[in-house]
């Protein structure tokens, strides 16, 4: 239990008292959460707990009704738009894989690559200037052999990896990953855990996931969300033993 307000200094992501309502329904209710630089955190919670909405308010898709959201301890995210927040260094992987289906795997990574984002910068951008970076990322996500395939033709699991590759290309300081292994085979799930752990070595990562084997594989601190606020946090074993958690989530 935190009795005094923690200091946002030195935090990577700082949420304090964040609330969001949709037509009177509280999707987020006084949510507070802190992620430290380099930390990987798993977020679990039943359907409708507000996990995706939390990512929406961090990335600027939804404006919170109340509360503070700070990045790097001092940048106020509630006043910025999606593109601005993305350029700060926050990458997001959606629940449903959204890659650009009519672009090749290669072009998907190329579009995500950190770099200047203005229309004139891209209009006069030289093709071939970033090939090494793209090749390295394709290697990491194991899609080198499919670089010229249209992303729409990839399997579900490959699309998820491509999207993770796109996030890597953005070189974010903070990565938000929404249900990365939904619909994956066991082998793909294990591979994804490996991939995320590798990625987390150099940045903060927040992973929302239902799959308990996967969360156990990640082996990080877990936060349980329920009805828009934090119900419990700690190690997976700790939260699994929490009677409130058992009641609303694990017991069902």
């Amino acid at each position, binding site marked *: 239990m935190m009795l005094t307000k923690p200091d946002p200094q030195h935090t990577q992501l700082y949420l304090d008292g964040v609330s969001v309502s949709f037509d009177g329904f509280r999707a987020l209710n006084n949510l507070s959460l802190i992620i430290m630089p380099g930390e990987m955190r798993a977020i679990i919670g039943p359907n409708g707990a507000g996990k995706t909405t939390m990512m929406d308010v961090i990335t600027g898709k939804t404006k919170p009704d109340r509360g503070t959201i700070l990045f790097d301890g001092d940048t106020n995210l509630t006043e910025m738009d999606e593109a601005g927040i993305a350029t700060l260094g926050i990458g997001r992987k959606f629940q449903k894989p959204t890659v650009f289906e009519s672009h090749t795997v290669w072009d998907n990574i190329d579009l995500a690559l950190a770099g200047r984002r203005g229309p004139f910068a891209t209009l006069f951008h030289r*093709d071939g200037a970033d090939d090494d970076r793209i090749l390295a990322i394709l290697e990491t996500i194991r899609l080198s052999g499919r670089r010229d395939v249209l992303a729409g033709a990839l399997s579900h699991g490959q699309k998820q990896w491509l999207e993770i590759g796109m996030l890597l290309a953005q070189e974010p300081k903070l990565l938000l990953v929404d249900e990365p292994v939904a619909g994956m085979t066991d082998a793909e799930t294990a591979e994804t855990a490996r991939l995320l752990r590798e990625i987390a070595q150099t940045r903060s990562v927040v992973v929302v996931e239902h799959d308990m084997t996967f969360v156990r594989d990640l082996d990080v601190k877990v936060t349980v969300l329920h009805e828009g606020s934090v119900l419990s946090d700690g190690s997976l074993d700790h939260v699994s033993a929490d009677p409130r958690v058992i009641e609303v989530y694990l017991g069902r």
Partner: protein
Amino acid sequence: MQGGILLPRLDRAGLIFGAVALGLAILIPILNLIVPTDSAFHVPPHVVALMGKYLCYALLALSVDLVWGYCGILSLGHGAFFALGGYAMGMYLMRQIGPRGMYGHPTLPDFMVFLNWQELPWYWLGFDQFWFAAIMVLLAPGLLAGLLGWLAFRSRVTGVYLSIITQAMTFALLLAFFRNDMGFGGNNGLTDFKDILGAPLQADGTRSALFAASAIALAFGFILCRWIVRSKLGRVLVAIRDAESRTRFLGYRVEQYKLLVFVTSACMAGVAGALYVPQVGIINPGEFSPANSIEAVIWVAVGGRGTLIGSVIGAVLVNFGKTLLTNALPEIWLFALGGLFIAVTLFLPRGIVGLWTGYWAKRREKQAASIATQPVTEGS
């Protein structure tokens, strides 16, 4: 450095298109001016004008394809940009008439004399200069597109709402230009032009030159569009078309991209209108009619959206059909156009070009399959 970016993107498609357009720009004037009238190869002047008109429509279609096919902006108001470019050119042509009007007034166009106006309105100043009119051909549609786009894209108006707004824009301009006190000739528009850059408009040589200018403008438009869609910016546009909010989360300011491409496209439409007016000899508010903008979208759909070349093919073919049909059975044209649109949407969602590329893709697949199934005679 510049060449490093500009030249490699001048690809085969752009070069072939440019070469064909240039060939037409040379060939048609020869067939009209030099080949004797009684030869089977002679192209009569009215056909030259008709083909020039088709090329202007093709440039308009190209501009529609750039925003619709590559960025997903279904503009139902591009006819307005075309008409504004046309009016800018028309104003220049009016002032070229000088004292040769019916009323013989030294500067005022006939319709102003008729309305008892004493002097030229301020916004007609400068239009006696060709260079000024040429700038206005780009500026008037560009500014309107910039203003509308800035308002709409900033507030994230997309899809059918954006289409309705663009349609409302052209309708509002239609009503405005109908008014006599707007100073653009009202109902009758601008007409009775005499000459352009000192050359008489009715002369065969001028018509041929205008045709050649249209072909070259179309080639430039095509190469410009190829250059845009093959750049990284072009790939961002397609990303916006397919998954707009995803593109935002990658850090791209979608509204800036849409605005840039919308303004560029409006300027292209303006040039098309400016070349169109001297070839048909008139511009009136009817050019703002919402149906015109819708027709341009149909040309693109018929030819194949998002292919550039398809929009050119669609514009030329549909208008050729229109010419044939309105001569034979004028009353059924609108039904034919509507039917064509429905048929293309249902049976040819990727247009004529899609049919063509689909056919070749299938053939290649079949060939690959037949090679794969051939019995292995070597080895083992």
